[in-house]
């Protein structure tokens, strides 16, 4: 028993395509404590999504080892919740039914699942939209549904791959505040991929910086901000400015995507 939620040891990932071989990740080592909020930042194509897929067993490493909750990952894992940039909702299901897909696939008791769904719907401010179909919901609302679906089974690890990348700046800020609060309420481990440096620093305890070609960890910084983070105040903290500056320097101009 290692005691880590996620443990990635000396991992390399190579993709074989017809034209050429791509080394997506090389020499990557990363450990995440249970209950920790870790953000992963880096330019597009540096292997951030690959890292999350490794952690959940959707992808096997070419070399090295990956452990989730102390157990070696050898196939898709059920003890995670996943949120993608696209909400990936089933358009023939209402918001509530989309959330409950998680329960149906897992064979959770219906009553328990319903109660949990109601709880999450309230927590994410979806009350009143339970019976709306995805095309009737705004991008922010769709992403809330995806988040509820990912949290339904109380996963010990939540993996988020640029979940707010497609949202407008204001909605994105709101979602950041909510995610931070939800994380505090659920105490789950979060791995969040983003290319917004501000988002990473506001949300995370630690920020892992990845550089491209091949994808390697360029550095890790601790964010020494209080646990309770007021959005406006945090933005003007000297520590916030210091951390974002540090990351920007580390990643170079390539990462400044926002």
């Amino acid at each position, binding site marked *: 028993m290692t005691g880590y939620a996620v443990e990635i040891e000396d991992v390399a990932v190579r993709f074989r395509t017809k034209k050429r071989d791509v080394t997506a990740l090389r020499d990557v080592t990363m450990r995440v404590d249970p209950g920790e909020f870790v953000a992963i930042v880096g330019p597009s194509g540096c292997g951030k999504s690959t890292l999350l897929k490794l952690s959940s067993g959707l992808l096997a490493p070419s070399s090295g080892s990956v452990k989730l909750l102390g157990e070696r990952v050898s196939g898709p894992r059920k003890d995670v919740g996943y949120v993608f940039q*696209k909400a990936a909702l089933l358009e023939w299901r209402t918001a509530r039914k989309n959330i409950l897909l998680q329960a*149906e696939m897992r064979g959770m008791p219906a009553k328990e699942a319903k109660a949990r769904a109601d709880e999450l719907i309230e927590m994410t*401010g979806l009350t009143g939209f339970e019976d709306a179909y995805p095309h*009737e919901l705004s991008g*922010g609302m769709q992403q809330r549904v995806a988040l509820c679906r990912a949290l339904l089974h109380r996963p010990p690890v939540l993996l988020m791959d640029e979940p707010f990348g497609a949202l407008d700046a204001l909605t994105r800020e*709101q979602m950041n505040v909510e995610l931070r609060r939800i994380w*505090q309420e659920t105490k789950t481990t979060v791995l969040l991929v983003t290319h917004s440096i501000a988002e990473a620093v506001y949300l995370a305890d630690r920020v892992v910086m990845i550089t491209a070609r091949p994808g390697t960890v360029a550095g890790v910084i601790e964010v020494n901000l209080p646990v*309770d983070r*007021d959005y406006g105040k945090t933005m003007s903290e000297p520590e916030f400015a210091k951390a974002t500056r540090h990351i920007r320097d580390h990643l170079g101009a390539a990462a400044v995507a926002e």
Partner: protein
Amino acid sequence: MVTHSQSARTEPAGPPGPTSSAGVSERARPGIAQRILGFTERGWRPIALLVVLFFAWWAVTAAELIEPYLVPSPGDTFDAIASRPDYFWEHTWATTYETLLGFVIAAAVGVFAAVVMVQSATVEKTLYPLLLFAQVIPKIAIAPLFVVWLGFGIGPKIVVAVLMAFFPVVISMVTGLKSVDPEMLQLSATMGAKPGQTFWKIRFPASLPHLFSGLKVAATMAVTGAVVGEFVGADAGLGFVILQANGNLDTPVLFAGLLIMSLLGVLLFVLVEWLEHLVLPWHASRRTEGVTTTL
């Protein structure tokens, strides 16, 4: 390590209530009245065109610009039907029966073939050339062979109808089954879904809009197939009526046959479209009007 706090909620930048900008979009699902209104709004153009064409037909024949034995007047055409209603009813029913049976078999075979094909790339690569071959071979050329094999009864008509109708079903269903968002499938894997669950809850419903567009094409092909089958040897059906009228130079009956045949194709098409609205309300309600929708 974490203490619960409400501080983030009370700030101006806090989470939005249901009334915020992140809420439901304006568009609601239309009621019955709106739908009828919408139908007449969209439907008047084709109907107007039909009326114009019909009037042109009437005008040309009334002015005797063309000899009546080449193009009969609308009146003569309808008289041809009205004077022998039983005859037309019998033969229309024969073609309808062959068409429906051919269509249903084509749909079932097509869906089954598509489901089998997406299981593995090897199966797909093996079956595709065979399907393509069955599609490109001219049906009118092989129809006589089916008559030799299956006789003058309903058999060859149904075989030709199936052969003509099943290709669009397979192609659309394969496309549909492959159109599923790969992230949705990854999500399904992290939910521990069994292959059957992923198929029935995600892949199959996601493929239905594609399937229905294939079924609509198939519906019109099935009519053609049945009539082609009748052309090469039959004693019943609209194809038989047309051939017989042709032999007798009885153009009013010939036109009547053509008219009924076209109507049959349109009716079956609309029937499939109506079924689509019934089965996929989520899809129909978000689809914008276009050339492929008549309802």
